[in-house]
């Protein structure tokens, strides 16, 4: 009875909030206030439970992949698609998905949660499986220090009931200390040593050697990215190599893909249909604002979300700046991280063609950063609205890339919608 009441009140709040153009947080907050147990009660009805995806970089894209791979196996999957990866966002997404009686029609849920919120989440709902991606320097103003972030991921793993998948190339996740005490099976995914060189890690920053690599850790089962040329990946598991042409660009997306495969294999076990899974993987397109392309007339705008030094460096490395106009938008809201120090841990020398427009609340911090890498700067305009108009006007190249922090990405996307139809994500 209570469940039905919460559902109906929550759905109403969600509807009103959407009419007013608001986000997903308010209805989530409302439900948490009137019925704390709603999320747990709803999720624990799922026959196959919850797959939780966490880590610093790649959560949204990887979650999207896991959802598609599980769907390819005939499962009905619930997920928090909006990328608002707080428990409140999960509750809001649930409100949209349950029927009037509050029943969730799904076999399994795949949820992305940031490290701190995931710890809250697992105290309410024990996930069946978790997929842990990496521990990178991110928003230290929120999490304190990286080693603490690794501890948060450990808590998630310790609450998981059926199986844990870790990135074996992450020095903190691969440590025996991280997984040897876990009682559930632990599997891994990784990339071949040749490809590993392509990944800048935090520890390899500015003369810092990587953490002494613990002898290649041995896991009971590993899914490997064996080779990657352009977007063709060779992926090995269970003694066989498979070739897949990915729609997603960037080596980090290929790495996320093997993570998604590893957890899908664990969930499905012997019943896995490998062909269906790989076909689905090949079809996955970039998630909301993560290397997403938006066409306006003849011009393509690429949105690249940047949140932390490692992610920004990987993005700059993955996408060539040749024949491309570049814009950078840096905000410092809570979701972006308030501390601007991170910009100084990214090298911008690769932007040899210069940056046409710099924008966002912290536009001048970004311009200052570029000044010290002696990168040419066009316009500096904190207002995203004016800056985007300038970029559209002054750009000369058919491809225009916009690097933006999280809240900046939301504004840029919204503004671009005025010119074209961008998919609405609820």
């Amino acid at each position, binding site marked *: 009875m209570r469940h039905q009441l919460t559902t109906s009140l929550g759905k109403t709040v969600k509807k009103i909030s959407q009419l007013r153009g608001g986000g997903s947080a308010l209805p989530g907050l409302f439900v948490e206030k009137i019925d704390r147990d709603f999320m747990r009660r709803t999720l624990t009805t799922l026959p196959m439970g919850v797959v939780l995806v966490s880590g610093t970089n790649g959560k949204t894209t990887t979650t999207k992949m896991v959802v598609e791979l599980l769907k390819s196996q005939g499962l009905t999957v619930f997920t928090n698609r909006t990328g608002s990866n707080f428990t409140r966002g999960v509750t809001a997404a649930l409100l949209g998905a349950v029927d009037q009686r509050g029943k969730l029609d799904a076999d399994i849920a795949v949820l992305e949660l940031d490290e701190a919120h995931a710890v809250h989440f697992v105290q309410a709902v024990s996930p069946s499986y978790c997929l842990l991606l990496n521990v990178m320097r991110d928003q230290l103003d929120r999490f304190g*220090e990286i080693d603490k972030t690794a501890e948060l991921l450990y808590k998630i793993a310790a609450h998981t009931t059926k199986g844990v998948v870790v990135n074996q190339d992450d020095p903190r996740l691969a440590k025996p200390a991280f997984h040897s005490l876990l009682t559930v099976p632990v599997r891994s995914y990784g990339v071949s040593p040749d490809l590993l060189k392509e990944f800048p890690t935090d520890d390899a920053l*500015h003369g810092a050697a990587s953490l002494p690599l613990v002898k290649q850790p041995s896991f009971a089962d590993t899914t490997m990215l064996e080779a990657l040329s352009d977007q063709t990946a060779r992926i090995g598991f269970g003694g066989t190599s498979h070739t897949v042409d990915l729609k997603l660009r960037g080596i980090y997306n290929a790495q996320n893909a093997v993570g998604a495969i590893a957890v899908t294999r664990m969930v499905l076990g012997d019943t896995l249909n490998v062909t269906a899974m790989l076909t689905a993987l090949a079809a996955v397109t970039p998630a909301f604002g993560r290397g997403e392309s938006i066409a306006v007339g003849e011009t393509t705008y690429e949105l690249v979300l940047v949140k932390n030094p490692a992610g920004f460096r990987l993005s700059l490395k993955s996408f060539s700046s040749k024949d491309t106009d570049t814009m950078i938008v840096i905000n410092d809201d809570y979701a972006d991280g308030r*501390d601007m*120090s991170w910009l100084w841990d990214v090298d911008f020398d690769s932007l040899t063609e210069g940056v046409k427009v710099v924008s966002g609340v912290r536009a001048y*911090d970004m311009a*200052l950063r570029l000044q010290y890498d002696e990168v040419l700067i066009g316009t500096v305009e904190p207002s995203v609205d004016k800056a985007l108009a300038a970029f559209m006007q002054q750009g000369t190249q058919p491809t225009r890339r916009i690097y933006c922090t999280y809240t900046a990405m939301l504004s840029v996307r919204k503004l671009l919608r005025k010119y074209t139809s961008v998919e609405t994500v609820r």
Partner: protein
Amino acid sequence: MTRGTITLLQLYPRDMNIYGDWGNTLVLKRRLEWHGYGVNLVAYNPGDEFPKEVDLIVGGGGQDSGQSKIGDDLLGIGDRLKTLADQGVPMLMICGLYQQFGHYFKTKDGEEIKGIGLLDIVTVGGHERLIGNIVTENDKFGSIVGYENHSGLTTLGANATPLGTVMRGAGNNNQDRTEGARYNNVIGTYLHGSLLPKNPAIADWLIEQAVIRKYGEFHPAVIDDHFASLARDTAARRPR
């Protein structure tokens, strides 16, 4: 033609580099170049041989694990650093190395990490992290803008002067409104963000001390700092 070459030493860049500390090194390097000097950038990590000639030293912050990794090595070069400080070599130490340049750091659990005592300060572990935008005021440098993120609470002794008076934020200990510490040409501070890009006056002061000590005179070039000035204005207005 350069007016001379300055050796800039990065102290423990491998283990103490957590909050954009590269920003401070980069700003010193570039501004030296823009002022017309060549830069010999040297990294010192645990076990390395300490360079014979050093004109300017910069060190950063670390996690607890980084701080304990460099602890013994730092004690080993402590006397060397103290002599250099007494000779007027300018140094900038941020956060973790600021603490370890003091007498000791006592953790919440009562464990005492010995410092080199170059700065007359002591630090004890606090229960909350002091995090956020911070503005302090100094007679020489004007307002100093940065970002703090620390749980250690630092108290100054008689032989250290504060770097700034806290106008907004927590500072050394969230009590006495002091922030950072100075001894001779050595500056220790909790401010990153990074510190020097947004506070070019401090960068140029450190450079000036290094150049004058080595060449007797310093003729600065005019550097366009308008982005720095606008970034400072923004930072000072943002929520903590």
